[in-house]
């Protein structure tokens, strides 16, 4: 029993070792790139803000200092100023990292997971594939922001609905990535050999094609997080996402519009936080893509 168990373990161990050395190589390439390290630093900073907001933020995000209303940047005790309702902008920006990270990462992860079976089935079974990809074509026929606005309006505001809308918006992109990669793998020699040997479809999909597809899906997901953070904040800016009084950067930017001439910091500071976090994710995504595939380029 012990012996058979051991002999079964051997290939698994070597496989894990091979994978971890590949991961190590990627990590080393990433660590050599200063821009990527910068991206990691920016994202980590916001992640710390999100996780430890109650300890980092100087005030409660909804506490009102009404007598200091609209005070500008560098006001003692309120270094990023005070908003229209007398709330501390720095505290709200720190708490806002929670929403932005959630709306950036969660929809991307969910739609990537949903896209795996869709893309794999579409690539492996031609008729199902034609049907699935035609539906994706229809979703592609809407500019991303337009579809997000339409879905946001249909589903109504709130964090859950915002995430649901973004999952649908992302689905065609993720599915196409999985589909394209799975098609390439399907025609690779080792899969054609497995098909010729009569290996059942589910086994080929799960054992042979899936592992190859997952890595492209992860890379693509990381490169799109920035765009999704902007789209999510945009929907909240339009009143179709996060609702007051939740501290959200898009919502805060929108609230500051009314006092733009009087107190420009109310709108521009949270907007700058979006810009900074997105820059961090884009640096990270670019670095990862270059580490994995130096010849790839950005496409819409």
């Amino acid at each position: 029993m012990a012996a058979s168990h051991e002999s079964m373990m051997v290939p698994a161990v070597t496989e894990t070792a091979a994978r971890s050395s590949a991961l190590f190589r990627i990590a080393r390439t990433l660590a050599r790139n200063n821009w990527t390290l910068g991206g990691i630093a920016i994202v980590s900073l916001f992640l710390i803000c999100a996780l430890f907001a109650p300890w980092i933020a100087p005030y409660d995000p909804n506490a009102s200092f009404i007598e200091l209303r609209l005070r500008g940047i560098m006001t003692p005790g309120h270094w990023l100023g005070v908003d229209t309702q007398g709330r501390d902008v720095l505290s709200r920006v720190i708490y806002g990292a929670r929403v932005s990270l959630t709306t950036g990462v969660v929809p991307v992860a969910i739609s990537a997971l949903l896209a795996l079976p869709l893309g794999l089935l579409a690539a492996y079974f031609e008729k199902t594939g034609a049907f699935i990809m035609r539906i994706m074509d229809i979703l592609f026929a809407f500019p991303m922001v337009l579809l997000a606005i339409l879905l946001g309006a249909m589903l109504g505001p709130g964090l859950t609905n915002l995430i649901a809308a973004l999952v649908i918006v992302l689905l065609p992109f993720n599915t196409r990535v999985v589909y394209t990669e799975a098609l390439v793998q399907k025609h690779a020699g080792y899969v054609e050999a497995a098909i010729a040997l009569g290996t059942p479809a589910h086994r080929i999909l799960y054992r042979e094609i899936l592992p190859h597809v997952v890595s492209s899906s992860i890379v693509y997901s990381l490169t799109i997080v920035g765009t999704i953070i902007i789209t999510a904040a945009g929907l909240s800016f339009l009143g179709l996402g996060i609702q007051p009084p939740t501290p959200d950067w898009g919502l805060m930017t929108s609230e500051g519009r009314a006092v733009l001439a009087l107190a420009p910091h109310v709108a521009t500071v949270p907007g700058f936080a979006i810009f900074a976090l997105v820059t961090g994710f884009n640096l990270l995504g670019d670095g990862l893509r270059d580490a994995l595939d130096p010849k790839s380029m950005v496409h819409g």
Partner: protein
Amino acid sequence: MLKFTLWRTAQAVPVLLGVSFIVFLSLYLLPGDVTQQLLGLAASAESIKSLREELGLDEPILVQYWIWLKRALAGNLGSSHVMRTEVLQVVANKSLNSLVLMASSLGLVIVASLALSTISAWKKDSALDRGISAAMFLLASMPAFWLGLVLIVFFAVKLPIFPSAGMYPITGSGGLADLLRHLVLPTITTAATSLAIVTRVTRSAIVEALSSLYISAARSRGLSATSILYKHAFRNVLPTFVNICGLQIGYLFGSAIFSEIIFAWPGIGFQLYNSVIARDGPMVQGTVIVIALVFVIGNLLADLIVRWLDVHRT
């Protein structure tokens, strides 16, 4: 080429049908009862019923879609629940304003990205190249709505050079100079993300073209820089350039919606926003279907141009 054109155009038809169905369905799923909004909470059951019939809200869903589609194809997009005017008329008026903004933004993207990517690629790895690349990277990470507000703060409030709002209908009086003054900030806001992406991709394409053998041959024959760039590099980069510009149409539409809202530009994006807020179903449908239609046609044209360039490259 003709065969490709027909095939590619035919492909767009089922997509547009699917789009129209989704847009139609959206009316059902938009929250809130339209009749109640129009008539107020104190409306009698009878007046609500007659309004529902008037708006065709009592038929089964597929019947409604069929009626809606037939009417839409005939150019009848219904009438706005809130404004009580023809949707098509409103949409047509606003579309013109949006087209002006889109055209100037696409123009800015094309001219600026060609200039920047050429300089960047020609002076590869110089400080200038790195500066342009870094600037484009930052530009690509900016939310359009934030950029628009920052531009207003600097160029409309602190230095009152450009107006932050107040665009009149283009067909009205005011003259070209006034229109251009109103166009500057919204155009930059709309174009920013696309400009960054197109510049990055085009720079890589030019760098690749310049490193190829025939360019080295042209250089060794002593051809001038401009001659090499225009006669040799561009011809090969052009399909990539048109393709990436075509892919930007969606981004431009997205940014244009925010740009119109921020600068109160009386376009279709601003109208869409107002209609969504007012839960004006037919108006939302009308604006969405027109934007999707223009988007699909834009992509189709870009595909055809790329194909044409590929065929006529040699």
